[in-house]
């Protein structure tokens, strides 16, 4: 795969990832009537696990590097989002919901990092 084709595929995959985020967030919001941003949390935790898994698989040569870029940097990068999570945390602070804000800010960080580590560990077990 040429570098230009890889860059194009990364962009297309990012568009698909953002679309998946829009649809999944909409479906979750329609089912769970909560002012806590459950949708963004589910999206970021699942995306972090999958990127950890993919990165782990690529490190053990199970996935070619350019496909790691398309699926990881493109699809999962477009699927997960930091800006919305940060904005929603500030909204919770403005509403004086400090515990919810701490969960959305620091809690999400810890859970997503743990999910990525679990992805690494899963890749390690699968490729052993």
């Amino acid at each position, binding site marked *: 795969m040429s570098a230009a084709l890889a860059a194009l595929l990364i962009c297309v995959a990012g568009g698909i990832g953002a679309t998946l985020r829009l649809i999944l967030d909409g479906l979750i919001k329609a089912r769970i009537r909560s002012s806590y941003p459950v949708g963004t949390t589910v999206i970021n935790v699942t995306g972090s696990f999958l990127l950890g898994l993919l990165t782990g698989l690529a490190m053990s040569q199970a996935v070619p590097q350019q496909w790691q870029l398309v699926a990881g940097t493109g699809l999962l990068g477009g699927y997960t989002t930091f800006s919305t999570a940060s904005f929603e945390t500030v909204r919770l602070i403005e509403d004086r919901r400090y515990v919810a804000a701490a969960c959305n800010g620091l809690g999400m960080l810890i859970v*997503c990092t743990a999910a990525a580590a679990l992805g690494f560990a899963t890749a390690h077990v699968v490729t052993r």
Partner: protein
Amino acid sequence: MRDRPRPLHLSWSNIAIVALGGAVGTGLRYGITLVVPRWAGVPIATLGINVVGAFLLGLLLEVLADRSLDTGWSRRIRLGVGTGGLGGFTTYSALATETAALAITRPGLAIGYAFGTVLLGAAASIAGIWLSRGHLRPALVNGKNRR
């Protein structure tokens, strides 16, 4: 009688707008990570992207929060630039994966990178909202009323 409108997340035009914005945002992020190397082991490209994206999203959503600016175009901009563009530009999966990988060899740096991103991101969101509320939105609303 009109049919009940499709939910926002299932309308084809909205999906197309978000996909286009997501592709542009992801392309910009990929380009930046190609040209900005790590600094002292810290993935400063992802850090900068996430903080700048949080600032811009705060600015954008707070501008569009004014009802008098709420038109069909405002929704398209929110979806295209906000959900698609800035959502695709910023990334949480890279933040989490880089932190988990960094934690194996340099746990202190990993903690600093992760918490630093979230704290700077929150400060950037607040700055964007504040700038929009105090300056940008009043200027836009006044400009619109004067016409």
